[in-house]
């Protein structure tokens, strides 16, 4: 019951946000110069041809009407058709979702398995600013995807090492081949995550370490590993959960640059080419789905806080 009272206003806010996103992306697309008629016909576009194309895709209607038409279709689960293939874009998104999810999972797993232990180790090391861990954090947060990806592509395409650049195959068809292709982009995405998780964990742990109950526990003579397990981790987890969920949401909404760089057919690349081709339905669906995923994940994080720390739920009204 309390959870519902806690979630209701958040769901309402989320719906408003999603509606706002839908209006913005819809309007922005129609403000952009150039349309699908240009892409299809190239230089040979005439006013008549433009009108034919506009009519075929309902672009001759007033924008407001187009928007409501889209919204009504959305509510019926219809995300529209691609102008190029005239097939439903939702099918394409569903086909590509596993690719993006796999990429995000690889990045997340790597980020957590390096970031958390290093962050905890560094936070409990007792120095004011951890040494090696801090250095790793600084490097990880500073090498952009583009640079790291390019360096990896250089290394792995000049010397034919086991991992491959490009040439995606689905996991179901060829698991080894799939991993050979997905590991490099996954690693590229994860480096920023490692730094992010490491820094957040370290700071959170250090904050907790100076709390009174830790001093008390130390005074009681509890073993350090018990103190960390029982007191530190639980109390330090909220900021870490926040950051990790935001990072995961960012990963799921499609890492355009990495997907472009490594030619990975995920939703980011699809949305990006949709935008270049002025294939409105693709971009609208891509942005909207990304926003929904992002918001949902953040909401799950909110629920998670409430589970971790009962005070959060109780204080919902502030």
């Amino acid at each position, binding site marked *: 019951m309390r959870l519902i009272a806690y979630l209701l206003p958040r769901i309402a806010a989320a719906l408003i946000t999603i509606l706002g996103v839908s209006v913005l992306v819809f309007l922005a697309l129609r403000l952009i110069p*150039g*349309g699908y008629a240009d*892409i299809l016909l190239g230089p040979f576009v005439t006013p008549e041809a433009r009108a034919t194309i506009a009519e075929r895709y309902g672009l001759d209607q007033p924008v407001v009407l187009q928007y409501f038409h889209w919204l009504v279709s959305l509510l019926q689960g219809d995300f529209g058709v691609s102008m*190029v293939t*005239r*097939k439903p874009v939702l099918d394409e998104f569903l086909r590509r979702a596993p690719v993006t999810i796999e990429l995000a999972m690889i990045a997340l797993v790597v980020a957590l398995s390096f970031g958390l232990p290093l962050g905890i180790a560094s936070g409990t090391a007792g120095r004011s600013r951890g040494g090696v861990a801090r250095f790793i954090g600084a490097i990880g947060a500073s090498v952009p995807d583009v640079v790291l990806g390019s360096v990896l592509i250089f290394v792995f395409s000049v010397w034919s090492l086991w991992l491959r650049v490009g040439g995606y195959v689905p996991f179901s068809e060829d698991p*080894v081949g799939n991993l050979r292709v997905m590991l490099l982009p996954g690693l590229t995405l994860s480096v920023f995550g490692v730094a992010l998780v490491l820094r957040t964990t370290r700071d959170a742990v250090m904050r907790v370490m100076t709390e009174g109950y830790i001093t008390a526990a130390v005074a009681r003579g509890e073993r350090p590993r018990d103190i960390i397990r029982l007191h530190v981790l639980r109390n330090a987890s909220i900021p870490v959960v926040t950051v990790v969920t935001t990072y995961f949401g960012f990963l799921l909404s499609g890492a355009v640059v990495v997907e472009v760089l490594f030619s990975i057919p995920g939703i980011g690349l699809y949305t990006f080419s949709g935008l270049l081709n002025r294939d409105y339905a693709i971009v609208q669906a891509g942005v909207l789905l990304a926003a929904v995923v992002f918001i949902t994940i953040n909401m799950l994080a909110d629920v998670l806080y409430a589970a971790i720390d009962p005070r959060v739920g109780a204080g919902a009204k502030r």
Partner: protein
Amino acid sequence: MNIRSSINKAAATAALGLGLAATCVLPSLAQDKTITWGKPAEITGFDVHVAGTVAAWEMYQMIYETLLAADENLEVQGALAESWEQTSPTSYVFKIRDGAAFSNGRAVTAADVIGSLERIKDPETASYWSHQLGDIAKMEAIDDHTVSVELAAPHPAFLPALAHITAAILPIEELKAGTFDPTSQLLGSGPFMVEEHKQDESWTLVRNPHYWRKGYPLADRLEAPIIPDESARMAALRDGRIDFTTFANPDAPQMLSKEDNIESKPQQTTNYYRIDVNALSDKSAFKDKKVRQAMNLALDRQAINDFVFAGTSDVDYPVPAAFGKDACRSLDTYAMPREERIEKAKALLKEAGNENPEVGLIAASSNPVLGRIAQVVQQSLGDAGFEVEIESIPTAEYLQRVFTDGDFDMSTSWLAGYTDPSMVIAWWNPEFAVWNQVFQENVPELSAALDEVKTMQGGAERDAKLSEICAMIDDGANLLSLVSKTDYVVYRDDQVDVTVAEKSGSSNTFQYISEFKPLD
């Protein structure tokens, strides 16, 4: 201890992943002979009579056929039509090949040919090829395999126009019956048919079992992953994931030439890189013809060849160099030493009262070659006092601004030269071309000359006319040729045996795709 446990966990996960992978059986290699084509871009639409981009044409050429085709001497040959006859300056009779059939098994008939040409001419279709076909007065099916066409006026470029993929023959019977939608399906009589299409990712084509040429195509399957990025295509060739692909940037084959098993075949085309100049807008400094002429003189075409194409291209002319005509060679633009041209350009600018014209130069950002050309153009025009600002914008925006809004000063791209010189220069008549109406000045004498040359048969007389026309084109400096565009087919010679025409006029790089032979 936390670190250790976590590392252990990670190791366990990795081991689990590998174990899982090892237990799965690798998909058995198909017995089918497959060739893999690294396609540089996704098609822009399905309608073969409408789409105006090479990315689309390349795919259509695998699936559709045209009545005629051009060989490597740019001479017209039979394709879907086994033979043809010109019975008068305006009438033609085409005999459709016996055994030609669409991939659904139905034979190609005279009705398909007539229906397809009618569809191109139909304004509802909005096909840009309608003009190039000329004015068709009447078409008749003499029998199931014979079509007669009557033109309203002589139009020698009618035959070369039929050799362009945009004049593809569709299954009209299915179209009318509603079982074939040309705007979302591909169904033709060519060597391959579509088995699967994953948008922006890949195409899987399989042989058309009803293809008229027995024993062809040599490959059973044609996989076409879409790989827009040049370096990614190079990597794919290196590790053998694709068998062949194309590059417009000559550095790419050069970079790959170090590999023992990678070969490259350049294909000379009648296409050239060009500059469109806006002679009509009040906002454009180029409305003044003198400024345009100064620009044309100041352009350093040789520098474009040297710096963008590493000297592998050649200076090109409005009548494409690939046709081997003399037209334009002796004009100042080409024959005068550069220092003198710069002086002449400066003098022209002075006369025009605009010694430092500020102009914008649009280059679509999707093609890096265009951006490089633009930068060399910027520098060479600077020598004569121009101040050029480059605008690198997305393709869709470029197209709308240049061809619909006329909101630009100059822009760079390339022009398809087709298979007859009269076809490409016809574009200098904006009433005929339509696409350049918003920026191309209509010069009545030039248009008249173009109309005349279109009706002339090849020979010395026509060549003289071409030279005359070229001089007029150069004088107007409204649409300029820069350097010729060579396509490079790069392939793994241990995986595939390719056949590529040395010269192509219809952007038909893979004309001989049915003869590509898988080697594994």
